[in-house]
């Protein structure tokens, strides 16, 4: 095993893309020039590291020359939405704001009502369903 690890030299995750490697190279070279590098290395180290990533490591997961840091990249990923990863800005909704309040109350009461939902309430006009004498309506002059 080589003592040097190109990804650690560049300060990037194992298996990072060539683009990431180039950006890290540029950043480290700039820090080196300004004397603000966070660790000691020479430009030749950076060149070697970038060359390794670009030409020697075609399939990082199959390459067996270098230690993997991190071993589980998924643990570091930021998941979910929030201030820095806002959800899409949706157009205003046209359906009822959520399920209407009476329906919501009903749904909390009964799972059957869950299933029946608003459609049932709309379909069952109580004024008609609960009319005991519809024939009177028909017979009115």
């Amino acid at each position, binding site marked *: 095993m080589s003592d040097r690890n190109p990804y650690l030299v560049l300060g*990037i995750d194992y298996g990072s893309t060539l683009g990431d490697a180039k950006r890290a190279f540029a950043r480290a070279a700039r820090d080196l020039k300004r004397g603000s590098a966070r660790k000691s290395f020479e430009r030749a180290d950076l060149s070697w590291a970038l060359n390794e990533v670009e030409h020697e490591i075609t399939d990082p997961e199959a390459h*067996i020359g270098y*230690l993997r840091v991190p071993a589980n990249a998924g643990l*570091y990923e930021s998941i979910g939405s929030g201030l820095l990863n806002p959800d899409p800005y949706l157009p205003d909704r046209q359906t009822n704001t959520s*399920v209407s309040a009476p329906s919501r109350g009903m749904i909390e009461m009964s*799972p059957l*009502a869950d*299933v029946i939902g608003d*459609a049932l309430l709309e379909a069952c006009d109580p004024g008609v369903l609960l009319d005991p004498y*519809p024939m009177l309506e028909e017979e009115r002059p």
Partner: protein
Amino acid sequence: MAAYVGTTGTGIHSGVTHRPFCRSCGQVAAPDEAACSSCGASLVPPRPAADDSFEAIGVKTAGTRKAGAGTFPIIRDEGRKWFVLAMNGAEVSLKKKDAELSSALKPAGRVQRWVHWCNHATSDQGLQQFWNRALAAASTEWDGRLMAQWALSKTRLGLLDGLNLSQSELTWLKIHSAIRVGKFEDTLHWIARLEDGTYPDILDLLGYAVAKGLPLAQAQKVQDKVAALDPHHPVALLLSEAPLAQWKDVQPAETPVLRHLRQAALFAVGQSEDAPGSGPLATLAKVERSLVGGESLPRESLSIPTTTLDLLLLWQERADPGGIEVRSDPKPLDDSWAPYADDLLEQWSPLSTAQQTWLEQIIRGSTGSAWESVTRRLDVLSGEGEAGSPCEEARRAYVSGDWSYLRNAGGHGEYFLALADLRDGDATATDRLQGHECLPLEGKRTLDLLETLVAGQHEQVSILVQDPTLWETLVKLDVPAESIVDTPLRFREWHHLTKAKQALYDDHFSEAAKIARECLRISTIEDIRDEALNLLGVALLSEGNAEAAATAFDKAIEDAHSDRLLVNWAIVRSASASDGLGDHWLEVAKKADHSPLRAAAGLRALSNLDDENGEAQLTSIAREVLFSAGDLDTAMAYLPIVGRHDSTWFQGQDWSTSPFFESSAFKVRVALYHSDQDHLEVLGNLLRKHPEDQELLEIRDSVVDSVMAVMGGAGDDEDENQLGIAAWGLQMLDVVPLKPRQEAILSLWSVQVALQHFGRDYEDDELPGEGLLKFVTRAEALVVDDSKGFDEDDKRFVSRQAAILRDEYAQQNITWHAHAHDRAVDTYNGFIDSIRSIGYGQRLDKQKVRAAAQEFSDSCQLHINEVSTALQLVSDEDLRQMSNNLLSAWKELQSTAQGLKRSV
């Protein structure tokens, strides 16, 4: 069971099933029946005759008085006076009837008129007076029903008492009234008092009550009443825990009520329909209890996946949908479900990919008008549709890293550029975010907290970490360690891992090890601990502590492990181990998931393995590599492994299906290990077929080089099979088309190696055959052929080598015959001794002696012939002299044998 077809009889509207029945006794009647066959009551209301003899009424507001003879006030209602106008006769002038008076005259009957005027009452007192007038005027049960209808419509349920109706009809009216005000217990109470089989509309009423929230468990109390009316009605089926099979006979419901009831029953059917307590009712009761108790739905008890149920489950637990597995087909739904889907779109991120895909298919498949807007919102969400707003436009650029767009997008671009700066740890960016229209409401609160943090108030960290998108920023802002003590464990674990990794990148190995150990101290989650051990191991190795690093990796791969951990373990273990270097890579080759990694690790193991057993363990990988896509070099490296260690499998494969079989090199190498094929013959055939194929020519050159390299080193090892090496070369000359130079050199070298073999042990019975010399002659013939392109040096070289080889051949021949001569002399002397040892009185078999002497003489002649032939090849003078001496010796021995024959 007959199909239940929904509306029958005199249905009042498409939503409800009604069969004609007598309101008085509740018995079901035949269609078009005029009177009840049970109680005789009329089923059809009489058409009221116009009655203009009855008094009309008018209103007198304060200060005015309606003109007309015979008018008098009869009703007082909150300051207003109502007048009854005598209408019988023409005594009243109606020329100036106002609108109210006019309308008062319209109802045809007296009761109708009084009930109509109840609408105009402005006080209970006034209403009661109008009602009393109606009661007094009512003469038939239909008058009472007219009044009951009005009372129910105005929820004036107290007025029902006193109507001239049968007791059962009054009970039935109370069912109606209780349902109207949501008193479901009263509903059930009055239903229970009805006679069995009467008032069929209670089926629909009960369905409505259940839909409105009447628990099924309670509704079951009147199950008998329902069953007595119609055991096949959907409500009856629902209450009776009917098996699914019965529901299948219910025709596709025409009405939403039936459809939804049936749907409810279908999804609720339990796993074992026959088992007590596991039917739909029991299941629904269980579900209901869970909901009321705020528990998760007992998803496992609902064995039939339905789209609506899954949607509801998702909706119910949309804040944390992790445990909900959508199992149903994403079928289109009607408009009533659109609000649920819309709600879920606003909680999109917590949904899993499977859930999102499922919901997306429902939304895109549903075609109702309510779904159109939901689909548009989904398009925005999925990035497929127009952004629809500048904020969304800019957000998309931000997510895709299109910074140039953002730089040119004005204020909206500025907002997201500021977000990017904040993400990178620039706390000053918060100023550019505040008050922006793209800042969501909840984001405003987060931003305020972040500003207080930047100002030095770190107690807000525990709230801020609830937004996972801020975690990285918090690390970059370098919040003090003490401020994260009270944050959730998951954040602290993540924080420690991130800090330790960064310390490694900065070459601060000691600090990295320290933070990784702290992470190990607080975390019990295997993934987190494995990663901490990984960081610790790398830090320790970087500090030069290889053995401790190896121990860390040993722990990291103890249970489940990833490929990356496995590789790190092998690297570190190989660096610290003194022996068995190949073993660790062999483990990677056997256990890794990524097949190219297994192949690479196997190759690394091969280079370190020092025994055949280790190599044999790679056969399963080799099998996989040789028939899966990959690079040819790797396949070529693995081919010998199966060729040597997995021969049975190797011989049984159809190698033409290997992706590498297009390669001639692979094909030749397969032939090399295939017992039925001679790889040189395969190579020769391919070359004759494709004489210009560069790959084949390179293989040929490579094989010739290999043969020559082996020949060049031949003789160094006493155990070496020189005869085999020579045969290899001679076979190549025989079957593989070669370059002239290769042919010449291979001819000479093959003969030379063969002669080395024969010259190694003169006691051996073997003697180089004369055929060997044909190859020497072949080489000589080649170089003198001008068309072959040999120069003079070549010719001289081959000529000299040919002479040397012939001398060598002759010398071996002569030497062999010299040894044979020594053995022949011993044999002859032994023969003579045996003759002399014949004792006195014993008889010598002369015939036998003569025959033996002749046989010996013949043998000598063969040697004489062969030595004479060899003598002709000799160019060396000393060797020639030696050969002549040997020839003389053989002749002398033959002569002696002949003399013995004659003397006997």
